[in-house]
């Protein structure tokens, strides 16, 4: 057996570049994401956090190397089955039409429905239940384009939950949110974490990392990603090297707080 069953996502010698002639963004990267763990990708702008997510999603193809989900090469998994395994919460999404929140969230059932079917009553109940869990059931009949940024993010998270994935990718889930909404997202993620889903989160906010992550992956532009436990990675030397600014970490009320700059 080449694959340990407790590893759900494996990157094996993955190399990726935007064009054949370019210097690779990732070169021979090896990473393993344990089942049920929470991993955070951190790094400065342009270090490839979103690209790394898109590679794991299968949306971008690696130039060489292989990416495996539960031991199977990603490109060999049929689309609908892949949609049942893994969901993505993007930062934002183009939406030219006035879908209601419920209609929008129901799109998350697509991987479970045959091509000619529409969501039925059980799907609707599941969607309403998920909306309730995220605390936005009162928005069910509002038009998505008219929601605030924070509400839209909650809707995207709910749609991913309705997909009932075993692996959930979240791209900067707390970006541009006010403190109250950020706390709500943190609570939701905390609940998901305890429910046993594998979470892969990209984040600019080391605060989210220190509270949630079991594993941290540091992405330096043009260098090999480094993966380690949260305690080993969230230390002043590593962070200041990663972002190129001075970093100090203090503890207050049982939480580690990162101070940037002088």
């Amino acid at each position, binding site marked *: 057996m080449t694959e340990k069953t407790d590893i759900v996502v494996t990157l094996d010698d993955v190399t990726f570049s935007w064009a054949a002639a370019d210097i690779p963004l990732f070169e021979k990267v090896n990473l393993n994401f344990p089942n049920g763990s929470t991993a955070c990708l951190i790094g400065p702008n342009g270090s490839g956090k979103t690209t790394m997510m*898109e590679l794991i*999603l*299968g*949306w971008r193809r690696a130039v060489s190397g292989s990416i495996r989900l539960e031991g199977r090469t990603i490109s060999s998994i049929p*689309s*609908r*089955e*892949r*949609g*049942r395994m*893994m*969901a*993505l919460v*993007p930062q934002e*999404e*183009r*939406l*030219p*039409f*006035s*879908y*209601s929140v*419920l*209609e929008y969230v129901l*799109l*998350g059932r*697509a*991987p479970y*429905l045959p*091509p*000619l*079917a*529409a*969501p039925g*009553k059980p799907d*609707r109940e599941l969607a*309403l239940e998920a909306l309730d869990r995220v605390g936005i059931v009162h928005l*069910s*009949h*509002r*038009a998505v384009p008219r929601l605030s940024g924070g509400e839209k993010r909650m809707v995207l998270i709910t749609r991913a939950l309705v*997909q009932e994935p075993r692996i959930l990718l979240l791209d900067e889930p707390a970006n541009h949110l006010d403190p109250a909404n950020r706390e709500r997202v943190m609570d939701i993620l905390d609940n998901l974490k305890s429910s046993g889903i594998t979470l892969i989160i990209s984040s600019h906010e080391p605060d989210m990392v220190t509270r949630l992550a079991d594993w941290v992956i540091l992405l330096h532009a043009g260098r090999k990603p480094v993966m380690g436990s949260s305690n080993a990675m969230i230390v002043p030397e590593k962070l200041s090297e990663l972002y190129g600014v001075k970093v100090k970490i203090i503890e207050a009320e049982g939480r580690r707080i990162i101070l940037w700059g002088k």
Partner: protein
Amino acid sequence: MIPIIENRSRRVLRNAGLAAALIAVFTLSLLWGRYPHVGFTSLSVLSTDALARALVWNIRLPRALIAVMLGASLAAAGTILQTVLGNPLVEPGLLGVSQGAAFGAALAILLAGGVYWSIPVSASVFGLSGLALSWFLARKIRYGGSILRLVLAGVVVSAFFSSGLGVLKYLADPRSELPDITFWLMGGLTSADWPSVGRTAPPVILTLALTFLVRWRINLLALDDRSAFALGSNPGRERLALVVLSVIAVAAVTATAGIISWVGLLVPHVARKLEGADTARSLPLSMILGAMFVLVCDDIARGLLTGEIPLGLLTALGGALLFALLMTREERPLKG
């Protein structure tokens, strides 16, 4: 809790009402005309007058059938193209199809003047090649996302065919061929007969039935490609399939009716206003409304004056007015 059931039964009622309205408009269209005198032909006239019966059977019925197919196809294609290209201003005329078909029809009028089947065949071939050229060109464009590329390519191909059409008009005999070309470009159902119903119905019924069956899944393509992919779809392949289906339906009706504008732009907007964006509901509604709109416009086209008014002029006039009305009205809050 949200009263889903109540909304559902209300929706079923409304759809049944709309279908009944379409049947009523269709039946009245068969009775409406200028023989034996202007107005609705009474049933007693039909039972005594053999000419009136022949008129209804051989002229009004095939014409109404083509009008229904024309309206449903243009509206369905509009809904699908707007959704899968993520642009509410797209209509079937985009992507080079209409201009290609117009060029093809003009070419047939010039080269094969009298042969009746040459116009629909040539219009279909050039309409579909307009799409193929747009698609091919879009793959070569190195700018923007996949949807922008396709729209840009459609603009280029349309311009190419419309300049070709200009050349053909310049070459055409101004006494015989040019009026034929101009009349065809304005669109109309004067040539509708049973053979044209036979030609149009199979591709239209097939493509509309297929799009009807996948009507919910079309929603996925309104999202970013990456999000659609994450939801377990194959956005590139599914979008291509839906675009091709819509264009086949449009080419089939355009071959008989000429260029009918505004239906594909206006009707999907009305349907979305009434039923929301979900294509599971807005696509069937769009088909019914499109059929009714074109039926009524054609009734006016053939019955209002002693001469025939080009149908394309009426749909453009009515469509533009309704569109302006719709866009300036206050939007109602969304309901389930």
